[in-house]
C-alpha cells in the first residue's frame, strides 16, 4: 500500500506505473504492402525498396535489393517499357518517379564498381539444372537457380548470350559494352555456358532431362510469321527481325536511298524504321493498326506496344508513322514492290465478343515505296521440342513455367507468346527458378501474389511537397548514328534527388511522424532493425489506440487492427 508523501508530492515519471495500454480497443501495426511500382513490375522488382536504400545513401544495398529480382538492371533500365512508372502513385501527385533511370544508374554503378552478385558457394552435391536459351529468361533462370544453390548448364544456339538483347536491340538503345559487361558478370557467378548448341541438333531434350534435375526452356521466337498482303508477297521480301539481326551483327546497310514501308507498331518495327533511317533510307513509313502511344483517345491496349519515348525519338528522326492504318494492297512490278496501298482501320468489338479489325473503304491511300518490311512478330522454332509444342506456335506453361506435358520441364520468355518483353522474360525465369528449386527438393508449390498495392488515397499527401521529375539528357538528332547511346541517364546528384521524391508507398519512410505525433509517447525509435523492418516500435503498454500515427503516416505503412482479445 502506497504511503502518503508530504503534500502529496509525486516522483518524476511515476505515471509509467499506470499502463494506459489497457484502454485500447484497436492497435496500430506496421503493415508492409506492395507499392504499385512493385506490383506492376513483370520482373518482380520492388523499386520502392531499392529506392529507399539509395535514399539512405547506400547504392550498393540498393543494387542488391534490385538484383534479388532482376539480375540485369543496366540492361532493363534502358530497354524496359517500365510499367512501374505508369502505376507510380506520384504520377497522380505531380509526375511519376523516373524509376528506370534509377535502375539504370544502379546497374551501371555495379558494373563500374564491380560489385559481385551475392551467390552462395556451390555444394559438391548441388543439383544441376539445364537451361536452354541464354536470352533474358534463360539468364534470369540461370542466375536465380545459381542464387538458390544450383549448378547450371546454360545452352544457346548463338556464340554469345543475350538472345534478343544481342540480336535485335540496336546500340543506340542498349550499347554493346553495357550488355556484354552485365551479362559476362552474371555468367561469372559460376554458370556453365555452352555456346553454339542448337536444341535438336547438338543437344536433346530427353538427354538433358536425364542428366539434370530439371530443364528450363527459353528458346525465344526466331521463326518469322508467315506474311503476305492479300496473298501477295514480293520475291525479295525480307523479314524485319532478320534485317535487324543482319544490320546489328553483320553490319549490312539495308537500304541506302530507298523508300521503305515498315509494318508493325512494336519495338522491333520502330527499331527497324529507325535503323533504316540511320542507314540512309530516303523515306521510312511505319504503318500500324494501333494508335500512337500518347493518344489518350485510344484505350491503352490499342496503343503501339513500342516504348513511348522510343516512338517519339523515331518521329524526331523523321520516321513517318501511320497510326490506325493497315496495308490493304501491295503494288508490284515484276514481283518487286513499287508502292503500297494503306487504309484507315479501327479495332471494333465483334458479335462474337472478339475485337475485329475493320479497314474502311474509301480511305485508301497509296505510298510509293521500294521495299516493304514486315515486323509482325515471330514464333517458336519447334526444332528439338516438337513433342512439346505440337502444332502450336508457342509453348504453353503455367505461372510457374511448368509444362503440363512434361514433369521437370519448365519454360519461359518469348516462347510462351505472351507479353514478349525483356522484363516479362526475366520474371518468367525468376519464377521458374523458384519452382524448379521446389521441384528438386520435392516441396509443395507455393502461391503467387503480394496483396493489394497501396492506393493513392492510402497516403497522407499533406507531408509531400511538389517536386518535378528529373529528365535525362538526350543526344540531339543530328548526332545520332545508330550506335551511340541516345539517352544519357542521370548523374548521381539527380538520381538522389529522384530517390528523394519517392512516397515510399507501403513501407516505412522513417520520417518520424508517428514518433513525433504520438500523444502518449507510445512510439519508440530504434536503430536495430525491428521484426517488421521498420525504424519504430509501438509500446503497447501505453498505446491507447487512438490511430493518430496511422492517420498521419505519409506512406500508408501503419494500419489499425482490432485489439486481439487474448495476447
Amino acid at each position: 500500500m502506497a504511503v502518503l508523501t508530504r503534500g502529496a508530492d509525486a516522483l518524476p515519471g511515476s505515471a509509467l506505473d499506470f499502463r494506459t495500454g489497457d484502454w485500447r480497443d484497436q492497435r496500430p501495426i506496421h503493415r508492409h504492402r506492395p507499392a504499385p511500382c512493385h506490383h506492376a513490375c513483370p520482373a518482380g522488382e520492388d523499386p520502392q525498396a531499392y529506392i529507399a536504400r539509395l535514399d539512405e545513401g547506400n547504392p550498393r544495398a540498393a543494387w542488391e535489393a534490385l538484383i534479388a529480382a532482376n539480375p540485369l538492371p543496366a540492361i532493363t533500365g534502358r530497354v524496359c517499357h517500365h510499367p512501374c512508372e505508369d502505376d507510380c502513385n506520384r504520377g497522380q501527385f505531380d509526375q511519376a518517379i523516373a524509376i528506370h533511370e534509377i535502375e539504370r544508374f544502379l546497374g551501371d554503378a555495379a558494373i563500374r564498381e564491380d560489385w559481385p552478385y551475392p551467390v552462395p558457394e556451390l555444394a559438391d552435391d548441388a543439383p544441376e539444372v539445364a537451361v536452354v536459351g541464354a536470352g533474358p529468361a534463360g539468364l534470369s533462370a540461370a542466375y536465380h537457380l545459381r542464387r538458390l544453390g544450383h549448378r547450371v548448364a546454360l545452352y544457346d544456339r548463338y556464340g554469345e548470350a543475350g538472345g534478343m538483347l544481342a540480336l535485335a536491340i540496336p546500340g543506340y538503345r542498349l550499347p554493346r559494352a553495357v550488355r556484354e559487361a552485365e551479362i559476362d558478370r552474371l555468367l561469372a557467378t559460376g554458370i556453365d555456358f555452352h555456346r553454339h548448341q542448337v536444341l535438336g541438333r547438338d543437344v536433346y531434350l530427353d538427354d538433358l532431362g536425364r542428366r539434370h534435375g530439371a530443364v528450363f526452356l527459353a528458346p525465344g521466337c526466331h521463326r518469322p510469321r508467315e506474311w503476305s498482303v492479300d496473298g501477295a508477297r514480293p520475291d525479295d521480301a525480307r523479314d524485319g527481325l532478320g534485317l535487324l539481326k543482319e544490320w546489328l551483327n553483320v553490319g549490312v546497310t539495308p537500304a541506302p536511298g530507298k523508300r521503305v514501308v515498315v509494318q508493325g507498331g512494336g519495338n522491333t518495327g520502330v527499331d527497324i524504321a529507325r535503323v533504316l533511317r540511320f542507314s540512309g533510307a530516303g523515306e521510312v513509313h511505319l504503318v500500324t493498326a494501333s494508335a500512337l502511344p500518347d493518344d489518350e483517345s485510344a484505350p491503352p491496349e490499342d496503343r503501339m506496344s513500342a516504348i513511348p519515348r522510343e516512338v517519339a525519338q523515331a518521329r524526331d528522326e523523321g520516321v513517318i508513322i501511320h497510326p490506325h492504318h493497315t496495308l490493304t494492297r501491295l503494288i508490284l512490278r515484276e514481283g518487286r514492290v513499287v508502292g503500297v496501298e494503306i487504309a484507315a482501320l479501327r479495332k471494333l468489338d465483334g458479335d462474337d465478343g472478339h475485337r475485329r479489325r475493320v479497314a474502311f473503304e474509301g480511305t485508301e491511300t497509296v505510298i510509293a515505296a521500294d521495299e516493304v518490311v514486315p515486323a509482325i512478330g515471330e514464333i517458336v522454332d519447334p526444332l528439338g521440342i516438337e513433342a512439346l509444342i505440337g502444332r502450336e506456335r508457342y509453348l504453353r506453361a503455367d505461372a510457374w513455367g511448368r509444362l503440363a506435358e512434361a514433369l521437370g520441364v519448365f519454360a519461359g520468355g518469348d516462347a510462351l507468346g505472351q507479353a514478349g518483353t525483356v522484363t516479362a522474360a526475366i520474371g518468367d525465369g525468376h519464377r521458374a527458378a523458384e519452382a524448379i528449386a521446389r521441384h528438386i527438393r520435392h516441396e509443395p508449390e507455393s502461391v503467387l501474389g503480394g496483396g493489394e498495392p497501396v492506393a493513392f488515397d492510402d497516403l497522407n499527401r499533406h507531408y509531400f511537397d511538389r517536386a518535378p521529375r528529373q529528365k535525362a539528357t538526350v543526344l540531339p538528332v543530328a548526332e545520332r548514328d545508330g550506335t551511340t547511346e541516345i539517352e544519357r541517364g542521370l548523374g548521381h546528384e539527380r538520381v538522389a534527388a529522384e530517390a528523394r521524391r519517392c512516397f515510399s508507398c507501403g513501407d516505412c519512410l522513417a520520417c518520424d511522424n508517428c514518433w513525433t505525433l504520438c500523444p502518449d509517447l507510445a512510439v519508440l525509435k530504434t536503430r536495430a532493425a525491428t521484426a517488421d523492418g521498420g525504424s519504430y516500435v509501438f509500446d503497447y503498454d501505453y498505446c491507447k489506440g487512438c490511430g493518430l500515427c496511422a492517420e498521419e503516416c505519409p506512406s500508408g505503412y501503419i494500419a489499425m487492427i482490432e485489439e486481439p482479445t487474448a495476447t
Partner: protein
Amino acid sequence: MKTATEGSQAIAQAVTMCRPQVVAAYPITPQTHIVERIAKLVADGQAACEMVSVESEFSAASVVLGAAAAGSRAYTATASQGVLLMSEVLYNIAGLRLPLVLTCANRAVGAPINIWNDHQDSMAVRDAGWVQIYCTDNQDAVDTTIQAFRVAERLELPVMVCVDGFILTHLFEAIDLPTQAEVDGFLPPYRFSRALDPASPRTLGTLVTPAYFAETRHALDAAHGRALGEIAGAADAWSAISGRESAGPLRVVGDEQARIGVLTLGSVFGTLLEARDEMPELGPLRLMALRVFRPFPVEALKAACAGLSDLVVLERALSPGGGAIVGTEVRAALSEMATPPRVHAFAAGLGGRDIPLSLLPRLVAAAGAETPTRFAIIDVDLDKLAPEDR
C-alpha cells in the same frame, strides 16, 4: 536597546531581519505601512530581497507560494478583504505544506466597508490550515514574527501573525528591536526539502482521490498537533536570546485565588490589564491572552482555567447565526475538565469601536450573572437600531 517607533515599522524591520528572499504584497489599509517600509528598505539596499508588487492579494499569496516552493523564504502581509481574496490560495499553501509567514493587520470585513480593527478577517480563514498567532502588543508582534519563520520552516506549515490594525500597526511606542546577529543566530537559512529543482524534478500539487484525501487532512491536523511544541520551543529559544519573557500559547496574568477569568485575543489584553490595576475593587482576576488560536491549545487552556468558576471570553469577531467563535471553542475545550468554569462569551470592539478600561467592570459583572451568556455583543447600542432589527 529600545527604539521609539511605529508598530508597522517595527514589524517591517523584524521581517527584513529574517532575510526573506521574496516579499509580495498588495496594498490594503491598515497593512500598508508594513509593506511600504519593506519596499523602502529594499530600495535603500538595507534588505536583499525581491519585492514583487502584485496586482492583487490573490497574486500576492500565489507569488509567495511559488517562491516558497522554489526554495526561497517568502513573506506577505494583508488585511480584511485581502485575506478573503487570498483565502483559496491560503488553503492551497497549507495543503501543499509550504512554510510561509503572513502578517494580518486585522481589520473588519465589509459590507459595510469599514477600515478599522476587528478579527473577522483572520477568523474567516481559521480552518485554512495555517498556524494563527494573535499578538498582544508590538513587542509581541516583533518577537512572534521572528519566531514564526522558524516554526513555519521546521513544520513546513504556514504561519499567520495577527496584529490589530491601526491599534498596533499605527501605534508609536518604544520597542526593543533585536540585532541582525541575534536573528541570524536564531533563524538558520531556509532549506526546503521539497524545493522545485531540475536536479530532482518533483511534482507538487497532485490530484488526490477519496482513497487518500482523508489521510492528507489527517496529516495536516497532526502537523498542527506538533506545532504547539515547536511554537513553545521557538519561544524559549528566542527568549534565551532576547532576554524577554517567553510567550507561551496562552499568556496568563493574575493570582491563583482568582475565581473569575477573562480570556481575550490581541491588543485589548493590555487595556484589561491596566483596568485591573486601576480597579482593585474588582477583586482577584485571572486575565488570559490566547496568543495561539491555531493550533488550539486545549491543554494549556484547561490548565490556565483550573480553579475558575467563571470565564469570560471577549473576542473581536462573531459567527452570525452561530454566535461566538473563540468562545464556543473555549467552551468545548473546557468541557473536558472535571469541574469546568461557566463560560460567558462576548464580542466587543467590532469595526474599530473603542474598548475602554471601563469595559472590565461590565465583564466582571457579567461573570456574576445568574445564567451564563452564550453570546452577546457587549458594547452594542440597540437604541441605534430600528425596533425590528434589535
